[in-house]
């Protein structure tokens, strides 16, 4: 504790974590980011968060509803809408080309060129994020016409088909509409759209929450496969900690606008330091392991019931 808690405000992490990140190359750095909702009284949704995302890693952002994880993601991507406002802090994108981009000061064409091209996003509730009245072809094409105006029609069609094939959807579905696709397929199309411009960072906000376990597993496998091939970094946001522990390289646990613990998945699972992380870890029963203290016939049942209400 004494070695890790060098600053009073920073998240808890272990020496293993420091060793893990030492040789990694950063792709996105957030420093002291604070985001407020300008309502009366103002709500500080993200409070002095510093976070570094490394090239090709999966960073899990865990926390419960209202902890600020989606707001933070929107802040990283400059998608905040009033009344949300970035009060202070800096976000720097380290381009693969070598130049650094100050994300906070971007505006106009520079912002348009940055968004989706460098950092793309798979939105929460992706089941309903596709436009219901235009075809998949038009929606994928839209990204390409906006960001790659030099592309010809045939080239766009070829790229769209390639993207669908990449995410495991039959390219024959290009002319389908959202309602003709299953939930899993819609989610895959959303991922294809986020991948259209070969971004270096993809932010995924609860990408599998509304899906069944079996479909969910297929999508996760696809994300992992694409990550191996294209080496993009992923910020994976969810409240499903078991899932995060399984797929992420590192995990940031967020509570009330702050990151309370930041560590490798292994360390979080084996040696969580923050009481809140431990509480989250204890709030789901293990599928195949021993029955824990929360087992329904146990003595501690009522304590657990009371604590959680």
């Amino acid at each position, binding site marked *: 504790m004494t070695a890790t808690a060098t600053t009073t405000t920073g998240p808890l992490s272990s020496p293993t974590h420091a060793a893990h990140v030492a040789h990694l190359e950063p792709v996105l750095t957030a420093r002291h980011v604070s985001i407020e909702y300008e309502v009366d009284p103002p709500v500080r949704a993200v409070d002095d968060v510093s976070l570094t995302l490394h090239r090709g890693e999966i960073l899990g952002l865990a926390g*419960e*509803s209202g902890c600020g994880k989606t707001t933070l993601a929107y802040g990283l991507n400059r998608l905040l809408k009033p009344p949300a406002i970035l009060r202070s802090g800096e976000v720097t994108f380290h381009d693969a080309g070598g130049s650094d981009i100050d994300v906070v000061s971007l505006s106009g064409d520079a912002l348009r060129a940055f968004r989706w091209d460098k950092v793309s996003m798979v939105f929460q509730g992706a089941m309903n994020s596709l436009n219901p009245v235009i075809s998949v072809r038009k929606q994928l094409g839209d990204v390409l016409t906006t960001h790659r105006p030099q592309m010809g029609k045939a080239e766009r069609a070829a790229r769209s088909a390639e993207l669908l094939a990449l995410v495991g959807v039959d390219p024959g579905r290009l002319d389908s509409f959202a309602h003709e696709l299953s*939930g899993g397929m819609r989610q895959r199309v959303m991922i294809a759209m986020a991948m259209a411009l070969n971004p270096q960072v993809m932010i995924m906000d609860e990408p599998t929450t509304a899906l*069944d*376990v*079996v*479909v*969910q*597993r297929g999508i*996760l*496998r696809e994300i*992992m*496969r694409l990550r*191996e*091939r294209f080496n993009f970094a992923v910020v994976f946001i969810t*409240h*499903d*900690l*078991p*899932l995060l*522990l*399984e*797929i*992420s390289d590192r995990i940031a646990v967020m509570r009330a606008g702050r990151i309370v613990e930041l560590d490798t*998945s*292994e360390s979080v*699972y084996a040696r969580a330091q923050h009481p809140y992380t431990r*509480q*989250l*870890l204890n*709030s*789901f*029963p*293990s*599928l*195949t*392991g021993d*029955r824990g203290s*929360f*087992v*329904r*016939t146990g003595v501690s*049942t*009522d304590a*657990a*019931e*009371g*604590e*959680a*209400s």
Partner: protein
Amino acid sequence: MSSLEVRNLVKEFTVRSGVRRGTLRAVNDVSFTLEPGKTIALVGESGSGKSTVAKMISQLETPTTGEILLDGQPIGRRGRALSSYRHQVQMVFQDPFASLNPYHTVAHHLERPLRIHGVAAGQALEPAVHDLLERVNLTPPELYAVKRPHEMSGGQRQRVAIARALAPGARFLVADEPVSMLDVSIRLGVLNLLARLQREENLGVLYITHDLATARHFSDEILVMYRGDIVERGPSDDVILNPQHEYTKTLLAAAPEPSRHGRLREEVRAELAAS
């Protein structure tokens, strides 16, 4: 002899695609017996028919064929026989944000079933409401009775929904995904509440879920449904630790298991290396 039994339940829906008509068998020959003080978990993915089973038990859908028996008696179709069934078998729905009326107080939500089912009236209503709130751990009851749904958290709302189901004097609860809309840290609290009611008040619970881990820990028996059929059933530890059917194995392999971190990455790398 006290039990809720479903026998050879079948539900077919007519589906139309253009001019063609066909039937979709959503539930195919499902039978089980729910006893007081026991929890049965019905697991499966969307479209497996588990919610259709719940709707038939709660009389929101009529079975195409098959029977539902309460204490050995077929349930009445109308009138007093049906309302007697409804006193005893109640539902808890998935979404506590949608299942409570935002205009009304908690007391209103609980008084209505108490009055309609003839459990309490007049002066007796307030103590009955307080008793229900205490049973679901919303204490002190005076504080919660006057609240409206928006003043409570998801977990508290779901407790109100459970209290409402208990109000008519239910002996059997059909809980359709009762915690999947709630944050992980409050899920266990609600499940523990159901477990306590089951234990202390001898309630029979049909727990419908796609979460295998809580199904294992909170039920005595698990039924696995796939495309309308029950493909596997047995004591919960047997089904989870020693699955027999291919589909159960697929479901289990798909469930996240935190102790296996890095597993998926290695699998994917091996696959890519092989191709």
